[in-house]
């Protein structure tokens, strides 16, 4: 059980590293889908465990919703946005890929040291979960600021959200149902709005490069 959760949490972390190494928009979406699938499996495992223990079915419902929203719906929405915009490969980075991976590695170490200063965590397992999932949040943030194009930033936002969800599920074994539902709708509407926004930016500026947003238009 513990070993399985640990493996899943580190696979989620690994998928966010793979995301940073990608430069095709389609593979951004594919990696995000993979990460969400891992997340759904993670919540499924915890759900089955909590049914056995307390008989609560909440987390299994969360697992099903995660699958429906994050593995099926959001990637589909993003794909339609991408095909509308017709933008395929990210060409100019602020930093090249190996350096950004090494920076993410640094973020991981930073998380490790900052988590190990919390003295109240006695369980090494929980510490490992925290390190892995907080690193996912930070890597999502880094991904957001390291990509120039709007689609990369949407994916970064979603990865951050995945990290938050992983942290919550792993450390508390499930938040109250209503909070989870609220989060899902939050993310879904955010993606919808951002998708439309990207489309609009593309229409007005002929590019989804966010640096162009600074240009005055008269």
């Amino acid at each position, binding site marked *: 059980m513990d*070993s399985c959760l640990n*493996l899943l949490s580190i696979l989620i972390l690994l998928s966010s590293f*793979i995301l940073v*190494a990608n430069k095709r928009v389609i593979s951004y979406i594919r990696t995000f889908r993979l990460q969400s699938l891992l997340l759904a499996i993670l919540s499924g495992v915890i759900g089955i465990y909590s049914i056995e223990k307390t008989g609560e079915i909440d987390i299994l419902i969360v697992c099903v919703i995660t699958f429906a929203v994050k593995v099926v719906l959001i990637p589909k929405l993003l794909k339609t946005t991408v095909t509308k915009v017709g933008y395929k490969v990210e060409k100019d980075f602020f930093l090249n890929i190996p350096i950004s*991976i090494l920076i993410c*590695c640094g973020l*991981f170490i930073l998380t490790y040291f900052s988590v190990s200063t919390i003295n109240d965590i006695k369980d090494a397992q929980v510490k*490992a979960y925290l390190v892995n999932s907080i690193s996912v949040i930070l890597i999502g943030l880094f991904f957001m600021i390291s990509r120039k194009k709007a689609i990369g930033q949407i994916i970064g936002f979603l990865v951050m959200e995945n990290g938050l969800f992983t942290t919550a599920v792993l450390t508390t074994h499930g938040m109250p149902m209503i909070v989870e539902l609220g989060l899902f709708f939050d993310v879904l509407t955010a993606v919808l709005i951002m998708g439309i926004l990207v489309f609009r930016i593309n229409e007005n500026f002929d590019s989804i490069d966010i640096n162009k947003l600074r240009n005055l238009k008269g």
Partner: protein
Amino acid sequence: MNKIAYIVVQLIIMLLIAPLVSGIIKKVKALSQKRKGPPVFQLYRDIYKLIKKDTVVSKTASWIFSVTPYINFVTALIAGLLVPVSLKLTPLNFGGDVIFIIYILALGRFFMTLSGVDTGSTFGGMGSSREMALSSLIEPTLLVSVFTVGLISKSLSVHNMMETLSSIGTNIFQPVYIMCFLALFIVILVETARIPVDDPATHLELTMVHEAMLLEYSGKNLALMEYGAALKQLVLITLLVNLFVPLDSLITFNNAFLALGVSILLYIAKVAIAAVFIAIAEINTVKLRLFSVPNLAAISFILSFLGFVQYFIVGGIHG
């Protein structure tokens, strides 16, 4: 006395199996393309044929060119002696022999790159510079993943590492080992010139790396170079399967010879399966541009590094 017997057995197994791995990989690749492909034992025949042929050495080549095949072959063979094929064999071992394996293979590579430059052909120089770049990119991964296992088993000798990892049972499925396993797998793909970085089937293409350095060789020298490359591949695969797929604890025969025989058969099966997996990895990937290889190296480094940090957080054996 036992030691000598062990060394002889180890040598014979290494020398006999080495060319088989390439044969299996080629066969699986051919089957995936609905071709019949060369027979599994093709490389043995190639080496036999090459040994009978004359050697041609360029007039401009120095002594390095003619010495390199021997150095390449012998360094691979010594590295092979240090990686026991079965837990029941201890051919050669001393503290820190993992580092010795890595750097004796690096010595062979050093002479190979020198010989690539030596004849002055443009392809050779190109291949040499690429090979050095790739090896320097992939070396950190290899060291970090091996050191992680070394930290867990509190020894840097391959035999002790194998003993520790085969004594932990199902704990082998912990993230530490899985990450190190995947990292070493990528290392094997890069070090043995497999498809994501180099296509072993090409001759005279601008993208070749390993083949470019062997271009000037012929006859016996070429046979030795090919055999050396096959041995190096087998050494790395042995390191991978014997560390992370320890099945020796399953063998419970009382008879020592029978147990040894079964464990060697098991080892051959493991190597064959690893070869099939390498072939599958090759089939499913495309050759990367040379400038994308650092990304692959970074990913493999991250894999080993995640394993390394996991060891510090949860520890290796318990958890």
